[in-house]
């Protein structure tokens, strides 16, 4: 079907298209440009990449120094790897807890599903920052967990969780769990129970039926949920900053410090661009599955 020319359509399409292009897409171009500038002590604090010479020639002052710095200074490589590793294992833990949760909700009576989903979603609606802060009350040395364990006599010294990598893992799993459960529930709910019954009628054990039918059919949900956890977790700033210690150098924190601590905007831009390249693969996978799911 050939799209017909109707000017009214563009009144609907253009406002969001233009707004998002200007305020979401074009900013990346500016970050890319400024990643080739150099820090300078004026406002804004970087040199011009493009400038005009007195005789009206365009002058290009590209500096690759920021990227060279990124490759040579160990901090960045270590932080990128540490972020990827932390996000990867947090995603696996979320999957291990979130899958049975989504499965149990999908199997509960329809009348209870809405309530259970609301219970899962409610923390997502309430403040992320405050929930991370609330977690500190549980895991700090004299917090709820240690007090309870000491009272029960299970431990004799408080466990050191705050300011360690473990605290960051707990923080990410706690904060991102709803993002794992929801897409998983969405795919598991659509699963036809007749398929499982047919498999059982044909002699397959429930375990076998789960592995052969449920698991493969829920794969889109697994991928969507994993990406919704993994990608933001790699760039997480609040959790490592509030719960982590000096060793939990995640890339989000490095970027923040580069920007707010060192006021080096060009290096911060280069860190962001490098980071974005690193995430291009996962984001493309997420988009691909999203588009496919919407068309299905």
């Amino acid at each position, binding site marked *: 079907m050939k*799209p017909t020319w109707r000017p009214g*359509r563009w009144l*609907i*399409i253009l*406002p*969001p*298209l233009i*707004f*998002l292009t200007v*305020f*979401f*897409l*074009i*900013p*990346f171009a*500016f970050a890319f440009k*400024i990643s080739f500038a150099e820090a300078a002590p004026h406002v*804004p604090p970087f040199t011009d990449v493009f400038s005009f010479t007195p005789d009206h020639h365009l002058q290009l002052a590209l500096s690759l120094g920021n990227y060279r710095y990124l490759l040579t200074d160990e901090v960045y490589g270590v932080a990128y790897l540490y972020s990827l590793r932390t996000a990867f294992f947090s995603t696996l833990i979320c999957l291990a*807890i*979130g899958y049975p*949760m989504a*499965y*149990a*909700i*999908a*199997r509960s009576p329809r009348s209870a599903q809405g309530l259970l989903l*609301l*219970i899962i979603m409610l*923390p997502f*609606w*309430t*403040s992320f*920052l*405050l929930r991370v*802060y*609330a*977690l*500190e*009350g*549980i895991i*700090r040395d004299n917090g*709820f967990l240690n007090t309870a364990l000491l009272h029960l006599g299970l431990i004799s010294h408080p466990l050191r969780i705050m300011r360690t990598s473990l605290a960051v893992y707990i923080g990410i799993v*706690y904060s991102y*769990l*709803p993002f794992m459960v929801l897409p998983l529930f969405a795919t598991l709910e659509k699963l*036809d*129970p007749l398929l499982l019954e047919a498999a059982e009628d044909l002699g397959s054990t429930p375990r076998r039926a789960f592995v052969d039918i449920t698991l493969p059919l829920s794969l889109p949900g697994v991928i969507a949920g994993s990406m919704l956890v993994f*990608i*933001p977790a*790699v*760039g*997480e700033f*609040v959790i490592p900053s509030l719960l982590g210690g000096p060793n939990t150098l995640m890339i989000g924190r490095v*970027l923040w410090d580069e920007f707010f601590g060192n006021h080096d905007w060009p290096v*911060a831009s280069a860190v*962001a661009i490098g*980071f974005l390249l690193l995430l291009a693969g996962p*984001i493309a996978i997420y*988009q691909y599955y999203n588009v496919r799911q*919407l068309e299905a």
Partner: protein
Amino acid sequence: MERRSSTALLSVLFFGIALLYLPILVLIGYSFNASPLVNVWGGFSTAWYGELLHNRQLLQAALLSLEVALTASTGAVLLGTLAAIALVRFARFRGRLLLTGMVNAPLVMPEIITGITQLLLFVSMVQLFSWPHRGFTTIVLSHITFCTAYVTITVQSRLQAADRSLEEAAMDLGASPTRAFLEVTLPIISPAIISSWLLSFTLSLDDLVISSFVAGPGASTLPMVIYSKVKLGVSPDINALASLIVCAVGACVIAAGYLMTRADRRRTREAQLAGH
């Protein structure tokens, strides 16, 4: 899929739910602790709540955050609903793939990247057009950007599920396409529009990272003030503030959810009665 669950499955579900709620409950408990020391229970007190009213810095930041959230969520609902209509109703148009990408990417894009890139856009815009100055305007513009994504996704799925034949019936009865949409489909998708407005409002109220980048030196939103306080350690008045916010938002979400489910049920019943 509706089948019986084993006890093992149910226990994981309840463990997960307990994990989500325990920290908030403990925090609310601490907020009533009379002692300023976090590890000592000094008896029940509401003193920290009273103290909030005298903290001018917090009140000012809360006011700014509310203004930003109201403006940004309204803007995002307008843009996001338009984007959802475009994506669901117009099968092919130039820029469709671009629009799909731009409404999905902000959902997963780490905030720290969105924050720094938008700040660089704003300072470059100031150099070119002397607008926008960092503060309220830039915070609102960046909040609209990420909230629009959430609105589009929510409204889009609702619009896809909406029965197109009702609108066609209205057009057969002589309504113009615009009027048919406004009078038939808009009421059907209005729960999604309302809930996405609420979601945008709470997301905007909560945002720390993006606001920190784009706010500039003069403006501080509530999360920025809270962050700088809790960075120094646990503080009892923040416990009280956090409990207030969490309970207020929770109550609003539950009330909205209840009202919308009820409206939905009524509409389904009416449709059934109408022999649909």
